[in-house]
């Protein structure tokens, strides 16, 4: 009750300030400040930066957790982080990397680029876009607060029951997992929905489906996967919350529950999730490889169909994570064959990339290096994936370091390389500055070598009998050297990442603005200034084919032909409601985690409901930018 009163007083106080009842000057200063601008923005380009930067921040957090784990495993019988502490590290590492690093970085690139690539002025639901980001951020914050308040979750990123039930994990750790992921999951879901509608409804005239750049295509399929996969996670987390907080019995076998249902629900979500994080990376690769080979993408149509097929098959294979559960030879065989089938469309993509480079004129910029490094690395990860898909063999690999090696080859060698490639490629578009190429190449080489040094040996750890999720291992059975090498490799990745951080820092201090089209690009985003004006396109472009900007350049035109006369442009107004609503969810989550004091939780929900009503009754017609303003701002640069 005490907490409630304090919070209420605080809330009243803040209301007083923000309605101007307390000090009007202060309010004005707040409203014109940069911080307020970023908190209330609904501009997809700013939201992109928020997403990407917080994703990268969490990547460092997750990386430090990984570093700690590898330090514990550097020698056998080490005692740096043992028992539950190690389990907390590995759980938070996996959860942070997947949900708070990989996905937000992907959303960052999607937000920055997709509207530009389809020739749109914004996303379909700018407000929802902002809400999606703030929900993700609130959830991520909540999850990481667990380190300070009561201990982090420690049942693995898969959080299998019954270990994750109260009886075996009595602390609040798993509650943070459940509520943190639930909140950020809602954010992700509405984000994906937003992109689907954007891509379907807001394409510029002439931008047919088979003219969409591959990054847009992969974003589209990824969004569809999000749409259909996240509800399964929502349900799983909901049921686990019921079990933990409200005494339900879904997963408690002594009351008739079943732990296997958790596994089903988790993997019905979890397998599509891994394609959610890889497909946009495929998209980045397609753009980068085509641009820096100076060639049209080889087999564009089959690339599109392969993407759709991967997305579709992704829903039919979840049981390959459960081969050792004992579901019987029939389902194991069926799901094994379905899993193997995914190698075919993926192979189509790989060969198309290779043949895009064939006959091209390859420039090894940093972005291209990451794309080129990606190919063999990802293929190795995919190959081990196919090996894992064979149930009898998987009885050996399952839950061993072989699996750890597999998924880091695809997640780091695939997704992270993809995000880095995308970062170097689109940095000028996002920030208006070019990243330093020398530092970039240093980043690439240290990261690549460190990566292989870390994870290649781990295949052997698995084959030599080292289970995953262990904080120590026996000495004298041939595991020491390999673990040592593996740990040494992490320093390569750390140095590489530090170089990237330094590169960002250095770039922000550089004066020179990036040109609109620094790479001789092919797609629409390069037809407008770097960074683009808030309305993106002064006049919507008319698209005449695949690689529209390239086509115009080849035809000798300076830029895109406009599809409409210069006119007044409608813009959505900024809103503080997304932050407020997310704050409500955050408070609610926190309240429910602090058991026995549901008052705070309910207060949070009340905030959510109030903001929802405010939004519903709000009549926001945005504002307009008039042609004169556009011409002033846009002198010389044509849209």
């Amino acid at each position, binding site marked *: 009750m005490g907490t409630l009163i304090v919070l209420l007083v605080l809330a009243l106080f803040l209301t007083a300030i923000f309605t101007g009842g307390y000090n009007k000057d202060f309010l004005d200063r707040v409203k014109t400040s940069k911080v307020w601008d970023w908190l209330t923005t609904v501009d997809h380009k700013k939201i992109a930066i928020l997403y990407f930067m917080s994703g990268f921040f969490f990547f460092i957090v997750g990386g430090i957790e990984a570093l700690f784990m590898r330090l514990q495993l550097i020698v056998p019988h080490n005692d740096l982080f*043992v*028992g*539950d502490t190690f*389990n907390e590290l590995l759980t938070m590492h996996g959860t942070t990397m997947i949900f708070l690093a990989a996905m937000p970085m992907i959303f960052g690139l999607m937000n920055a680029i997709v509207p530009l690539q389809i020739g749109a002025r914004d996303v379909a639901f700018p407000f929802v876009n902002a809400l999606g980001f703030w929900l993700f951020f609130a959830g991520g914050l909540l999850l990481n607060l667990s380190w300070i308040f009561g201990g982090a979750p420690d*049942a693995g990123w898969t959080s*299998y029951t019954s*270990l994750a039930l109260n009886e*075996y994990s009595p602390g609040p750790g798993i509650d943070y997992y459940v509520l943190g992921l639930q909140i950020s999951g809602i954010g992700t879901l509405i984000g994906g929905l937003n992109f689907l509608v954007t891509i379907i409804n807001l394409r510029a005239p002439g931008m047919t489906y088979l003219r969409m750049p591959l990054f847009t295509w992969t974003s589209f399929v990824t969004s569809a996967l999000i749409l259909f996969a996240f509800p399964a996670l929502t349900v799983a987390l909901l049921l686990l919350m019921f079990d933990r907080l409200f005494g339900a019995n879904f997963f408690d*076998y002594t009351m008739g529950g079943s*732990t296997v249902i958790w596994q089903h629900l988790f993997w019905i979500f979890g397998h599509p999730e891994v394609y959610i994080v890889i497909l946009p990376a495929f998209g980045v690769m397609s753009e980068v490889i085509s641009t820096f*080979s*100076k*060639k049209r993408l080889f*087999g*564009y149509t*089959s690339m599109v169909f392969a993407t759709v097929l991967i997305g579709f098959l992704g829903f039919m294979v979840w049981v390959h994570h459960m081969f*050792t559960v*004992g579901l*019987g*030879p029939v389902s*194991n065989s069926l799901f*094994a064959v379905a899993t193997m089938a995914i190698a075919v469309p993926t*192979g*189509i993509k790989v*060969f*198309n990339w*290779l043949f895009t480079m*064939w*006959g*091209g*004129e*390859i420039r*090894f910029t940093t972005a291209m290096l990451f794309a080129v490094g990606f*190919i063999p690395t990802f293929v190795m990860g995919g*190959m*081990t994936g*196919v*090996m894992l898909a064979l149930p*009898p*063999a998987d*009885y*050996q690999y*399952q*839950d061993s370091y072989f699996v750890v090696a597999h998924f880091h080859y695809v997640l780091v060698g695939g997704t992270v390389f993809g995000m880095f490639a995308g970062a170097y490629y689109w940095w000028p578009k996002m920030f208006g500055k070019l990243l330093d190429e020398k530092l970039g190449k240093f980043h690439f080489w240290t990261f690549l*070598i460190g990566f292989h*040094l870390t994870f*290649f040996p781990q295949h*052997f750890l698995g*084959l*030599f*009998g080292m*289970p995953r999720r262990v904080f*120590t*291992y*026996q000495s004298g059975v*041939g*595991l020491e*050297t*390999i673990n040592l*090498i593996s740990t040494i490799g992490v320093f390569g990745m750390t140095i590489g990442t530090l170089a990237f951080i330094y590169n960002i820092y250095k770039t922000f201090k550089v004066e020179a603005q990036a040109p609109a089209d620094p790479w001789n690009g092919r797609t629409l985003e390069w037809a407008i200034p770097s960074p683009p004006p808030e309305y993106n396109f002064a006049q919507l472009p008319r698209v005449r084919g695949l690689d529209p900007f390239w086509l115009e350049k080849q035809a000798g035109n300076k830029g895109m032909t406009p599809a409409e006369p210069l006119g007044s442009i409608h813009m959505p107004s900024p809103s503080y409601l997304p932050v407020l609503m997310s704050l409500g969810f955050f408070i609610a989550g926190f309240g429910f985690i602090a058991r026995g004091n549901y008052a705070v939780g309910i207060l949070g929900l009340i905030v959510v409901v109030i903001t929802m009503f405010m939004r519903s009754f709000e009549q926001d017609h945005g504002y307009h930018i008039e042609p004169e303003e556009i011409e002033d701002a846009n002198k010389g640069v044509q849209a």
Partner: protein
Amino acid sequence: MSRQRLWRALLVFSLAALALSGCSGDPSLNVLEPSGTAGEKQLNLIMWSFFLMLGVFAVVITIFVYVLIRFRKRKGQDRMPEQTHGSTLLEIVWTVIPIVLLGILAVPTVNYTFELADAKPDEDSIRVKVTGHQYWWEFEYPDLGVKTAQELYIPVGKKVHLEIHGKDVLHSFWVPALGGKTDVIPGRVNTMWLDAKKPGKYQGKCAELCGAGHALMDFVVYAKEPAEFDKWVAQMKQPAKVATAAQKEGEQLFLQNCMGCHAGVNPKLQGPDLSKFGTRTTIAGILPHTEENLKKWLKNPEAVKPGAKMPKIDYLTQEELDALTEYLMSRK
């Protein structure tokens, strides 16, 4: 060029890693050196798929290297590459060949999957009921009337039929050198079979995250010649005698302090059966079986195995502890 040097360095590094790891690995814990039929079948499939993958990888990497060298932009060059759309023939090739390869791979996969699932015990197979607990293993031979923990004895050459039970959280039963793993699932009975072709000591592991002590939830499989196995069974059925005075005192202490858990009275607080503890070679599956280690364990189990569900026995006097240890070690 520094780029070339880096490439070479990368190559050397990975080869070194390969060589270093290739020559290690221990037969007691090695998937690549199986000593049982199930493990051999699995290794077969692993090698099969590995070489297939290696072949595909070789193709990819050959094209890859060729393309990177041949088509890189040279100094001063400014060529306009032909903007090809694709090639239907090539695309069909790299769709159909993988389908064929995967089809070929699918056949042994499905076969083995069914073979390994065929876990019905036959005439002379040994049946064992395995139960995974946080963080120890219980083995019961229902046909032989023997019950033990942490150490699974099996006769060489006979099919061992395992019935896998769980009570608390998920675990996974894994003996890398004998065959793959099967999950321990509370409220569900799983089955698997394995055999050992050579006598020896094989290390077993818990392969599913089960809490703080998961990393140390080890067990040992002893494969014995059938005669020796029978001897072991006979010994296990023979009740141990209490001979010396110290042992008597130890027995008393044991009855007072330990029976609650170690006699299987309380299903929620269950510890391993210790009635033949003297025959063991490990303590709690991880420490060598010495008096010193036993004392270390008793004084603070959590220090040995994080999360262990046994309380500290640190309230005994030195004599009492000696007596208790002697008693336990005499249970042969």
